[in-house]
């Protein structure tokens, strides 16, 4: 490759099979993750009579439809939901795809399982029929979500036709204040660039703040790239990445590890490489964030107020803000820290990893929830690790429900729903109208902010609780 190149350029270039004069590029796909929403894709393939090109590159786990109050198929009360998990089991068995099923400790949310198993590695192109696939970009991979037709295409050909997106670098520098976490960083980014700010771009997150994040923190940041409009978000691999990967079940071993490591070290963006767009944030200015509206871009520091639509730039924006405030039942000018909450959800592919649970448990320790609150670990292995550390006991003593792994109340497809009109402080990624249930009102927050809401019954600046320690 001539001249300095970006991490994204290097990965893209290494996967080009065909580049047409019009720019359409056939890309090799290293890793394909499937879940229990993939039955239409498998069915289409079967109908066409086409075999999987490379079953060894595909891994499956059920997450969207699984019950969290119990394990096993029988815990899924609804026959339609149960059939989605059954159909994944049947399809993977028929096609020879490795599946981490219910009853296997490795089962979990697909975006937690990939990195945890060492399936998601630097330099790879990883796809999944889910918009939060950008999560895996935290491992130094190019990872993006696809629809059902593209899932079929990857199963059949182990390739995808794509047009190269533009590149954007978001640099975050400075030290995060106590009580401020990766979730606050990504919410601050989305508030700054908007829910469409990254559309058509692959984002690289860079800067000292991102470097100092653990893999769990980087996964949280990359996870919400799609909420800024970007299909892909990535972080250059470094010693933190390699340390995390080493020894994981599907990570390279022995001589392969040494070869892989040498290759991975060549991946970070070269000095002088250029991006189509650059954005900078000062981490020292980021406070714990909450959302007040029905798009993730409607995020503000907890110290702020519900904004006034009268101050919106144009009529369309004003109209949409008014609609959002009506749906959320909020009044302009109200302090965000006075918003009463009915329920708390800690979980989802954004914030259900061991580090999320550790920081949340630290705040929950010795306190009591005053509203229904639940913790849903991201995988069976996260759950086991948390239990080994006694975190489950801390949460349960504080009044949290301790559940089994799955997507759960982030999207409610398994029946874990927020009731109509109820207000939920949630560590998930979307506050869309009806996302957590018809008429449900969602406030997106970090895990520690979720605990702060659970023990006080309102959106609360977690730093006021930390001062007491």
């Amino acid at each position, binding site marked *: 490759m001539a001249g300095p190149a970006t991490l994204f350029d290097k990965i893209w270039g290494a996967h080009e099979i065909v580049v047409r004069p019009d720019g359409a590029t056939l890309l090799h796909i290293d890793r394909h993750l499937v879940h229990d929403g993939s039955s239409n894709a498998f069915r289409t393939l079967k109908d066409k009579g086409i075999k999987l090109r490379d079953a060894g590159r595909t891994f499956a786990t059920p997450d969207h439809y699984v019950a969290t109050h119990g394990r096993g198929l029988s815990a899924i009360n609804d026959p339609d*939901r149960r059939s989605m998990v059954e159909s994944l089991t049947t399809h993977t068995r028929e096609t020879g795809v490795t599946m981490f099923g219910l009853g296997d400790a490795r089962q979990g949310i697909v975006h937690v399982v990939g990195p945890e198993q060492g399936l998601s590695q630097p330099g790879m192109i990883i796809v999944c029929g889910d918009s939060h696939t950008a999560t895996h970009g935290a491992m130094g991979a190019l990872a993006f*979500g*696809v629809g059902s037709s593209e899932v079929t295409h990857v199963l*059949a050909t182990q390739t995808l036709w794509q047009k190269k997106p533009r590149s954007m670098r978001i640099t975050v520098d400075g030290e995060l204040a106590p009580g401020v976490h990766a979730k606050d960083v990504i919410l601050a980014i989305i508030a700054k660039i908007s829910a*469409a700010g990254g559309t058509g771009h692959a984002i690289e997150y860079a800067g000292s703040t991102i470097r100092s994040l653990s893999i769990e923190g980087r996964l949280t940041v990359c996870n919400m790239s799609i909420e800024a409009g970007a299909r892909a978000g990535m972080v250059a691999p470094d010693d933190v990445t390699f340390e995390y990967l080493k020894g994981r079940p599907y990570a390279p071993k022995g001589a392969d590890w040494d070869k892989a490591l040498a290759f991975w070290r060549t991946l970070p963006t070269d000095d002088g490489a250029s991006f189509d767009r650059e954005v900078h944030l000062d981490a020292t200015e980021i406070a714990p964030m909450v959302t007040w509206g029905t798009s993730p871009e409607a995020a503000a520091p907890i110290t702020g107020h519900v904004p006034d639509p009268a101050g919106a730039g144009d009529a369309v924006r004003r109209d949409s803000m008014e609609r959002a405030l009506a749906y959320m039942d909020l009044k302009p000018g109200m302090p965000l820290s006075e918003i009463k909450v009915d329920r708390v959800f800690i979980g989802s592919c954004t914030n259900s990893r061991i580090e999320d649970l550790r920081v949340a448990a630290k705040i929950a320790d010795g306190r009591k929830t005053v509203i229904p609150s639940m913790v849903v670990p991201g995988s069976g292995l996260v759950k086991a690790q948390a239990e080994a550390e006694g975190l489950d006991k801390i949460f349960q003593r504080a009044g949290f429900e301790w559940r089994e792994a799955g997507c759960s109340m982030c999207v409610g497809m398994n029946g874990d729903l927020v009731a109509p009109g109820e207000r939920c402080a949630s560590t998930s990624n979307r506050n869309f109208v009806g996302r957590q249930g018809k008429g449900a009102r969602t406030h997106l927050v970090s895990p520690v902010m979720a605990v702060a809401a659970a023990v006080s019954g309102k959106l609360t600046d977690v730093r006021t609780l930390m001062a007491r320690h």
Partner: protein
Amino acid sequence: MEPFRQIDAVAAPLGTPNVDTDQIIPARFLWRLRDDGWGHLLFNDLRFNDDGSEKPQFLLNRPEYRPARILVADRNFGCGSSREHAVWSLYDYGFRAVIAPSFGDIFFNNSFQNGLLPIVQPIEVCEALRAELEQKPGAHIRVDLEAQKITAPDGSEYDFTIDPFRKECLLAGTDEVRFTLNQVDKIAAFEKSYENGMPWM
């Protein structure tokens, strides 16, 4: 996939930014199969009350817009979840083109896979088209893919750009999987050298 060439049809103006795919098709319906039909579920919670009766104020419940096959939307249309069911719902309802200032990237890709044409136009053009459609409910817009041209009800014409590969596939109604499998030799050759160089991948 059915080939797409041109369409002259009623257009409906949906002037809300960030219409996410959860709005287009709520998650609780997603266990259904592609062939089950999705048009009756399009915009379900915006379109229907809990008892199944229509919300009269919703765009597609107004008699003039009911037969719409073209949607003129606002920025970031189809953002959020990757669910292709959002495209199936629009398509099965009868929509064949969506005109907007910007689209969610995954929705945009999914549209082409199903014969739904997403057309990007400047925000001012979308605003002008929506204003005209609101003034003249039931008015037609014409979309010509081959000429890459939109004709507004008042006769104004707007050019649009489209990725040549996507255009070719839409015009021909290409089955992309078969198209790619025709190049399997190139894929196999790539895989061989790739796996030799990086056996751990």
